[in-house]
């Protein structure tokens, strides 16, 4: 297909997306189509009404034109976990079938406060405190989803969901297929994962590499309050089972997000910083390590293009491909393990599809294949640090 597109002369034009959280002062927003989903009038099967909601798949913030004083800035500031909660609350208001279940999500308010206050508002059945039984409450969520409810399962830490692997893989992922389309499983499975601050090996797991082979699920990783809220809403509205990966260290990020309602597309990547010399693909916490490295790189005269891939399954090969066609060099920076991680799959996908555009082999910077140590210094060495990213860019751009 790439060959066919090339024969037609598809220009490798990149459409810079004005990300709300962009740190650069001037940014030209060129003719960007606001793509509206075909399903724009959202009908509510329960109430039977047609609720019109404007679904903007690439929400372009207006503030680029209006860099006025802080007081008149549109939107409101909040932390990432609050953004998740806002998204969750809006969806629970909108659709009475949305419910949350997990350990300590109700009365305690969630171990990371994502569901704080929701149990008081919606009651114990809609924000359900489960016993410590991941396998069965994930199974329960799948069963409930088969009848039409839209449960959100919270794993207190993503690593705990390994106990529910069978339910996620066989039932969540495959039931739509094996039932011939009769049952949809619109669950959202979410929770914090990733390497934190000395949490130990079992609490520092990256499950995206284990789940990526499961057919039938979608995986997304959020990294900013803006995309956290947007992806949470999209995941809840999606008819497919979605696994939303959050990161333990990103919950307290502060950002200004729009007041109006917005939903992001589950399958699209985010252009963080357009550039010319090298494409750096990343997601979740590593985005910040990359941006830190980018500062150093810019001072050294490099112009990296940073893309937050966001969608871990399926990959947004359209955006990625356009970038590869422009820069011809790719570095993947991820927190997954070296073996069998997201980076490994992405490397294979890019090689298969865009091999002719590459001037150098793809460099994949991932965590070491070791259980995450408790000792702080060792833990630092297991994950990719900005200095390594800078060194890799310098190497690849020689």
């Amino acid at each position, binding site marked *: 297909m790439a060959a066919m597109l090339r024969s037609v002369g*598809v220009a490798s034009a990149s459409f810079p997306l004005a990300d709300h959280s962009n740190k650069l002062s001037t940014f030209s927003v060129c003719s960007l189509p606001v*793509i509206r989903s075909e399903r724009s009038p959202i009908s509510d099967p329960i109430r039977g009404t047609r609720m019109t909601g404007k679904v903007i798949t690439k929400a372009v913030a207006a503030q680029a034109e209006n860099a006025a004083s802080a007081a008149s800035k549109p939107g409101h500031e909040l932390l990432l976990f609050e953004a998740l909660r806002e998204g969750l609350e809006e969806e629970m208001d909108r659709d009475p079938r949305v419910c949350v279940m997990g350990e300590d999500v109700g009365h305690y308010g969630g171990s990371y406060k994502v569901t704080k206050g929701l149990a008081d508002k919606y009651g114990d059945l809609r924000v359900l405190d489960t016993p410590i*039984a991941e396998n069965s409450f994930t199974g*329960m969520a799948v069963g409930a989803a088969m*009848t039409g*409810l839209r449960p959100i399962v919270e794993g207190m830490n993503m690593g705990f969901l390994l106990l529910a692997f069978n339910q996620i893989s066989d*039932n969540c992922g495959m*039931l739509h297929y094996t039932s*011939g389309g009769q049952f949809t499983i619109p669950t959202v499975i979410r929770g914090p994962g990733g390497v934190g601050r000395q949490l130990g090996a079992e609490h520092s797991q990256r499950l995206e590499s284990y789940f990526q082979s499961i057919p039938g699920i979608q995986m997304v990783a959020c990294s900013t309050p803006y995309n956290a809220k947007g992806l949470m809403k999209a995941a809840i509205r999606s008819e497919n089972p979605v696994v939303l990966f959050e990161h333990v260290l990103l919950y307290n990020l502060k950002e200004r997000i729009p007041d109006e309602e917005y939903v992001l597309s589950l399958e699209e990547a985010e252009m963080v910083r357009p550039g010319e010399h090298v494409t750096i693909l990343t997601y979740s916490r590593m985005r910040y390590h990359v941006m830190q490295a980018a500062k150093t790189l810019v001072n050294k005269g490099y112009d990296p293009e940073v893309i937050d891939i966001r969608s871990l399954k399926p990959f947004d*090969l359209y955006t990625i491909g356009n970038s590869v066609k422009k820069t011809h060099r790719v570095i993947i920076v991820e927190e997954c393990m070296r073996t069998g991680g997201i980076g490994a799959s992405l490397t294979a996908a890019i090689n298969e599809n865009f091999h002719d555009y590459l001037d150098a082999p793809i460099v994949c910077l991932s965590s070491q294949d070791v259980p995450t140590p408790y000792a702080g210094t060792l833990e630092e060495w297991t994950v990719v640090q900005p200095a390594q990213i800078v060194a890799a860019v310098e190497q690849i751009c020689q």
Partner: protein
Amino acid sequence: MAQLTHRTTAFQKTLSAAILSTRHLSTSPITVETSVPFTAHNIDPPSRSVETTPQELLTFYRDMALMRRMEIAADSLYKSKLIRGFCHLYDGQEAVAVGMEAAITKKDCIITARMFEGEGRFDALYKKEGGFYGGHGIVGAQVPLGCGLAFAQKYSKDENVTFAMYGDGAANQGQLFEALNMAALWDLPAILVCENNHYGMGTAEWRAAKSPAYYKRGDYVPGLKVDGMDAFAVKQACKFAKEHALKNGPIILEMDTYRYHGHSMSDPGSTYRTRDEISGVRQERDPIERIRKLILSHDLATEKELKDTEKEVRKEVDEAIAKAKESPLPDPSELFTNVYVKGYGVELNKSLLELDLTNLSRFSVEQSLVLFSNIKLTLLVIDCISQSFGADRKELRAVLP
């Protein structure tokens, strides 16, 4: 598989109706005693006397004969390699399915294990409208799902119950106890039905379970032990359980039943039990025989009429098999259908006429002109861009590693 047939196909009750009409039988109720009294745990058992009607007796007979015939047919189809994969036969256990069906409505949910892979589609093993939520491959995993169905019923307040079925082998799965705990905690209308045929594949129950009294394993959850070879006992127990679950939360039913065949087609069924045992059960406890004796003793039909019913049932099954044999195998393009439900994203239509030009703004004007100038190339390119950006877009199918 037989459970599904029973629940979903529309039976032509022509012969039973014919029998009733020719004999001018009244629909007056008949009282039947169950073979053995119920054994109960933490609850008062229901009475042994079950009310039934001649119509129901004849229906039971026909349904069970149909199920039996289907299982035998599946046996021969498997041996002639038309059914592949694993095939688990249910003959001997028909009373459980038939009795349960008689006690509940289509709105109640049933979920069970035991899957078999036929030559084509899987969609026959699930039937949403009939409330049949499937035969699942991993035994035990369906019980939390069943509790989820019950949770949804409680959430929507719709006064129905869920029957989550499992076998004596799966009864040792941890997730069962987890699910039971949650069901009891939140008073979910879940009825856990253990179809105890005494063998978990090749392992007898006393070799796998320290306590084979499965109805007692709920501890704080009440349980009832039922003779699973007696359709009326099953019917009574299910009715009782439904009433209980709607008011008081979960209950366990242990159906004491037996399978004549091995666990699956590769299991002869005789290496871990004696042939005498199998034939003994067949002679003394066969569910169809019991109903036949009841029908004859109450003078509801003659031997010949019952034989005619069996012949009719056989014909029905043969016709279904013929139809299945004629049905085409799935097209390769169906490999990717239903992996995902179409979600968000832009969808471009395949036909040139319906191309939404605004969406072509992704490509430059130059490319659009090329598109429209070269028809042949256009069709190729249309194929490429006629893709959704949702999860099942074409490029994704080709490239996902």
